[in-house]
């Protein structure tokens, strides 16, 4: 297991959250995302526990695109990947974001 901590600038959407939400399940080719309020409204915090070593550069690229794509400032995303590929990570994050919006 490798742990990544990343804080990225992102816009804030006041209508989002704040209830805690668990999204996704850890299993083969899948992963788990937990969304909570974060410390800074202008930034998004990512805590990633990853099974893939030496993959942090790719992780950072995936998360940077996500933080640019959606206004997720003021949120913390805790992610347990289970050896998931970037495609699955992006899809799950987008789903977590969409669930936040609709809840």
């Amino acid at each position: 297991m490798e742990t990544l901590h990343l804080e990225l600038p992102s816009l804030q959407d006041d209508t989002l959250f704040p209830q805690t939400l668990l999204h996704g399940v850890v299993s083969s080719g899948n992963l788990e995302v937990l969304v909570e309020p974060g410390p800074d409204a202008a930034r998004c915090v990512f805590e990633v526990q990853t099974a893939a070593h030496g993959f942090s550069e790719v992780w950072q690229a995936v998360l940077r695109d996500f933080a640019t794509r959606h206004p997720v400032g003021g949120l913390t995303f805790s992610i347990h990947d289970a050896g998931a590929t970037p495609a699955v990570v992006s899809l799950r994050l987008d789903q977590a974001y969409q669930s936040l919006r609709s809840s």
Partner: protein
Amino acid sequence: MNAPQPHRVWNQEAQRRQARLQRSVPFARGKAVAPADMVSLLEALLEPGDRVCLEGNNQKQADFLSESLAACSPQRVHDLHLVQSVLALPSHMELFEKGIARRLDFSFAGPQAHRLARLVQSRSIEIGAIHTYLELFGRYFIDLTPQVCLIAAQAADAEGNLYLGPNTEDTPVIVEATAFKSGIVIAQVNERVEHLPRVDIPAGWVDFFVVAPSPNHIEPLFTRDPRHITEIQVLMAMMAIKGIYAEYGVERLNHGIGFDTAAIELLLPTYGASLGLKGRVARHWALNPHPTLIPAIEAGFVERVHSFGSEVGMEAYVAARPDVFFTGADGSLRSNRAFCQTAGLYACDMFIGSTLQMDLAGNSSTATLGRITGFGGAPNMGSDARGRRHASPAWLKAGRERSGSGTQVRGQKLVVQTVETWREPHHPTFVERLDAWQLMEDMGMDLPPIMIYGDDVSHVVTEEGIANLLLCRSPEERAQAIRGVAGYTPVGRARDQVLVENLRDRGVIRRPADLGIDVRDATRDLLAARSIKDLVRASGGLYQPPKQFRNW
């Protein structure tokens, strides 16, 4: 004037055949051979250096005959040249390890890929070439005609007529080439019966048969458990159906054997139907009886299927759907690899399948370091037939896109590669340089083992979008189009953002949103069957999955 040479003998092959048969007499009663006598029979009739086709298909295996050949004395039987489509059994490899065989011409070695690479490196084997099936079959009639073939059939009668059962596969083409060039045809059968359901190989073409101690091995190679289909595969299937099947009106096609295409099969009756595509796409198929095709057949999407081989467990279902499948008067499936490969080449408008690696020219390969997998039918199905002349709307549209503003004199087959950008962390599908090049150097090959050439590929589908390579006007554009759907792989991240956006504006690259697809809709709920049990149910109980797939 050249007078005929008086001393030239014109039937040496027939004389050699007679000599072989003469030497075999002590080990057979007519054409029937007892299992215990098979090794002696082979030792008696084979000669060093013989070209032998040991029927290995990708499903049916002449396993008893293979074991018998491997049990021959290397002092008596050696330096054989094997010409067979698939190396699948451990006993196939033993032949080379023992020196019984030395040279090999083949198509596919999936299950033995590692062991084959080791044999090449230790110089225990000489590989002539790795072929696509149809290419190897062609050579059976030109320069690789077997002197002896060892084949697998379902049943024989007393005279030696053979019934091949649903898994015909390569047998007719092997026997045709051998029997009509003074070769020896030896069959292993599962049973001897008084009356065959139908005669697939007439007794006059068969020299010997043996009732094997156990039925020949058949691999359920085309069964994909829907439980393992991921949401990403569902997303890619949606893109393929909407962006390619519907867009080109693809009525005649062939699918690969992976989960990506199984997802498409299971989405046709749900997502495909919701797009109004029933009767407009995917009507005529060159395909084995994939269990995952059952829901689309039942929904009336699929009208006709011709098959290379069969699939374990599909026998009763196929027999109950003769309007869809090719069946004999006895009711059972009639498959034929040579004819189905021909159909895939000339009569289909699209091939869609997956691969392990793709480079920036669109060349794809399933060869990875230390493994010689071979090609099977993919290079044939996944290529544009330059000899094709008949038109169809899909073929014409693809041809128009390729020729651009130039005069159109031909169409173009759609050759679609559907791949996730990463196979798993650390294994990107998109690479600057295929492992195939390294393998070529390590193995001393003439060419890198490329499965599908980039200039035959029309579309690349990934979770990030569809790249239409027909619309690319230069190698640079093609490379950027591929980078533009290569996701977070090093190849994808090295894209020129401006050029890629430009390609997107021109419709060369289309994202899910450009196709009107919401990625949130990509859930497993769209699959017409989510388990093997669902497939059994969809078949009305006719599909009988093999034991390893009975997981409920």
